[in-house]
Structure formats: C-alpha cells, structure tokens
C-alpha cells in the first residue's frame, strides 16, 4: 500500500522492481583483532592487589567472623532491618507524593502555590537532614503543644502534646526523612516535567484536555522515564540515610547494632554486618529500578515491538471478556 514497508521489514510491494543484489551474501571480513596488552597487564595487577586486600580482610582477626555470623541473622538484626525497610518505604512514599505535589505547585502559574513550594524546597534543601531529624525529635521543646485552630483568634479545634507525639521515635524519623525527601523529589519531578516536549502539552490541550488531565495522562507518564532512574538513586540513598535515626535512639538496624557494640565493643564485626545488609538491600533496589525503567520506557526503548504485542494481546483479551 505505501512506502512504509521499509520500516517494518516486510517484502516490497508486488510490482516494485528493485535491482537484484550483486550475488549471494559474502563471508564477513576475517581480520586479526587488535591485542589490548595494556588491559591484560593492568587487569592482572588489579586482581593481584584485590586478592591481597580480600585476604587481609578475611584473615584479619579483628573482624571476628564468628561474631559476624552470630549477628548477621540474629532476631535483633532482623527486627532492625524491618524498621529500616519500613522507614525507607514510608519516607519514600511521602517523598514521592510530596515531590509531585510540590513540583506541580512550583510550575503552576499561581504565584501563591509556586511561592509556597519555593520556600518549602528552600528550607528543606538548605538544612542538613541530620539536623532536621534532631529538630523534629525535639519538637516538644519549642512547641510544647500542637494546636489546630484559627491563629490570632483564640479559636481552637483541638490540641495535643507534642512531647507524646514525637515520643515514638518513628514519628520524628518519618517526618524528617519524608519531608526532606519531598524537597529533593520535587526538583527531580520538576526536571522530568520540563524535559517533556512542549508539543505534547499543545497536542493534549488542542484535544480539549484540561491542564490537569494533560499533566496526569500525557506529561507525567513521560516525565517518569526521566524521573525513575534518579528516584531509584534517591531510594538507595534513603535506605542508607535511615541510619541517621540512630542519632535520636531509633531502633532501625544500625541503631540496634550500634547499641550493641557500644557495650560489647565488637565494633568492626557489627559494622561488617551492617554493611552486608545495606549492600544486599541496595543491590535488590538496583534490580527493581531496572525493571521500573523498562516499564516506563515503553514506546521509547528497543523493545517496543515486544511491548506492542503485549498491548495487542491485552486489548484482545479485554474485548472477549
């Protein structure tokens, strides 16, 4: 029917007279590849040095391998690990939701919204998360009572003791980590939104889609492709940042191990335990991130033919349902 055939690899249309190829397909060129001697030599040196390093670590009696094994799967470590994961997940959810909200506010043409977002980001990006954690934990010191009401009028709907609120370590921990993350996520999401071609916005608007619908259905899904890799990084970073909660007596994994070694002085073996678990979890996250990237890359990547087939199958299944 048309010239598109050269794009999808089908045979040319009947009657199209293409000249015959100049004989059968010839053998590929056989040449002796360049030898990278420098690479081989440097690799050998690196392997040699790494072997020495690993050997010195494994054989180091200060590591106290029996202690490492004792704590690696100990109930204490497991409970801490659970809290570490919980903190990471909740903080990232708050961070992601807050980040999208702040980014959209920041890009809004409403100066009030964009101003609020600007100040928020300014404050939370401008202060160290470590300080924020301690600040939230001490909320009761400068605001002993939290009151919901109308300022300056004396009208009060309800109030609570901030001391009791932040007494459970997880509350200031989640507040600090989540709100801080939202500020960083906002900048990521904003960069992602800006990276989407202006023509996409116009096409959606010209179809009668409202700005909100355009954002949700057209711009954000495409921004995701840019956001996901960086957001994966943020999650990995968050997993490690939870260890700062130890500063306010948080009982996430590192906090618990720290509490142990401050009494038993088995510092090195317990740090090895902590590092092992952090490495394991960040490795898992890296795999998850790759999957997410593949999902949001649909329509862009080289696997689009495969993705298209899946879509077709799903649509047909729905039609029969």
């Amino acid at each position, binding site marked *: *029917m*048309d010239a598109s055939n050269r794009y999808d690899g089908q045979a040319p249309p009947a009657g199209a007279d293409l000249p015959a190829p100049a004989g059968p397909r010839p053998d590929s060129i056989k040449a002796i590849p360049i030898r990278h001697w420098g690479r081989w030599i440097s690799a050998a040196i690196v392997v040699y040095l790494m072997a020495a390093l690993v050997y010195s670590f494994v054989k180091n009696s200060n590591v106290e391998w029996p202690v490492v094994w004792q704590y690696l799967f100990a109930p204490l470590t497991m409970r801490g690990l659970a809290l570490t994961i919980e903190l990471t997940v909740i903080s990232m959810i708050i961070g992601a939701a807050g980040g999208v909200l702040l980014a959209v506010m920041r890009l809004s043409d409403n100066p009030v919204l964009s101003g609020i977002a600007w100040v928020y980001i300014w404050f939370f990006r401008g202060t160290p998360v470590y300080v924020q954690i301690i600040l939230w934990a001490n909320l009761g010191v400068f605001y002993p009572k939290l009151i919901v009401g109308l300022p300056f009028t004396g009208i009060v709907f309800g109030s609570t003791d901030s001391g009791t609120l932040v007494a459970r370590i997880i509350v200031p921990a989640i507040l600090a980590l989540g709100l801080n993350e939202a500020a960083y996520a906002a900048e990521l999401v904003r960069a992602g939104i800006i990276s989407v071609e202006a023509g996409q916005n116009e096409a959606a608007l010209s*179809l009668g889609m409202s700005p909100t619908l355009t954002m949700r259905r057209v711009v954000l899904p*495409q921004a995701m492709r840019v956001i996901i890799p960086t957001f994966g990084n943020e999650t990995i970073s968050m997993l490690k940042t939870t260890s700062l909660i130890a500063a306010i007596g948080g009982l996430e994994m590192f906090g618990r191990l720290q509490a142990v070694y401050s009494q038993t002085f088995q510092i090195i073996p317990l740090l090895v335990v902590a590092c092992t678990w952090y490495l394991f979890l960040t490795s898992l996250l890296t795999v998850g991130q790759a999957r997410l990237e593949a999902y949001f890359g649909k329509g*862009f990547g080289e696997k689009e033919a495969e993705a298209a087939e899946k879509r077709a199958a799903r649509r047909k299944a729905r039609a029969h349902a």
Partner: protein
Amino acid sequence: MSAGQPMVKAEKVWKSFGKLDVLKGVDFDVMPQETYVLLGPSGGGKSTLLRCINHLELINAGRLWVAGELMGYRQKGAVLHEMKARDVAKQRSHVGMVFQRFNLFPHMTAIENVMEAPVRVQHVPRKQAEAEAEELLRRVGLGEKLDTYPAQLSGGQQQRVAIARALAMKPKLMLFDEPTSALDPELVGEVLDVMKQLAVDGMTMVVVTHEIGFAKEVADGVALMDGGVIVEDGPPLDVLVNPKEERTKLFLSKVLA
C-alpha cells in the same frame, strides 16, 4: 449556528511577542465545509494565526470566532472576560489540530492515542471509543497498525494517526499546521490523500502548507500571508494562477521554480 454564519471569523487579529508584531490585523472568513489554505514565506505569521484560532496563543487585539463563539473570552456588553481553563478546553475540543511534528503521545499505541481524548474528555464508553478509533484508523489506512507505538511508525503513518486522533473528537473544524513539512518526500502523498478525502467529506479545514498543488486542487479559498498580514486572498485559481499582487507573484515564482 445559522446557515450563513462562517465557521471561522477573524477580525483585525493582532498578535505580538514582546516588541515583535507577528500578526498585524488579519481579517478572513471560512465558511462551513470549506478548505482554506494559508500560503506564504516562513515567519509570515501563518502558524501563529492557526494557533490563535484554537487559543493556544492569545491574541492581543481583534476578535476570533469559531462557529459563532468568541474564542477564549466571554463578552458581556462591551467588556471581555477571560474564560476559565475548563471552558477554553471545551471550546478546543471542537477544533482538531494537526501539527508539523505530529506530537503523538509516545507512551501510547496508535489506538490509545486516538481513544484518549474521547474517553477522558467526552467520557465516551471505552468499548465504543475503541470501536470508533479502530474505524478511524482504518479510514486513514492504518487498520493493521492499531497496537503499534508511534516510534515504530513512519512519519507519514504517524501523521495519519495524528489526523485520526483529532477526528476522534468529532471536531467542527480541523487546523493543519504544515502537516507534510517534516515528512520524507515519498510519504507526503499518503497524508495529502487523507486530507483530500476529508475535504470531499465536507470537513471545514484551515491548512497551513507549502503544497501549492494541494491548494490548487482542494482549496475553496487561498490566502498569501507575509509580514503578519494577508497580502492577497480569493479562490485558488485567482490567487495561484492570476495573482494581482507583486508579492504573490514573487512568492509563487520562487515556490514553483
């Protein structure tokens, strides 16, 4: 809308970007079922005028009506009130637009592109929207490409999906902004064929293009724009074959050379 009312009416439309005046008082009417072609050199204001018609650009002075409705404003007495985004969106949903760079949604397949606005904006039931989208894609010769992502389609195919996507909203008016300028020469024909068929079917169209042949064959009215004004307009045979203005003659001699 009464029978004698134009589908598009522009009255002294003025548009500037900062100090640069891009449209300097443009007047024209397009009657229902007409195809109106805007020709002229780049930077003459053709595309801007098109974008003003569906309020993607806001005009600085003058008036623009589509199907008797003032675009983007509500007039109460002598005072104009800006419309809310929701109401502008509603007006735009009656005006289809096709872009030079296609602007298909790359994360959606061909049929999803076409279904998106009917389902989300007009709340057409999914099944019905899907059937209509399939029919539209078949009409533009892409019945075999329903579940294909834009990146897998040739430029000509993408542009035909884009036309189907605009038609899915059952617009009263279609705007074409240089629909074939980004295409390989051998793919131009397939897009023009779809547009010719639309004209035959009675769609009202405003087309910015450099395809003089298309203008001659299909247009009911042709306008030559340069320097932000319409230099000459009229039936295609007058403007393209026996132009009165020197500027038109010069432009045609260059394009047809």
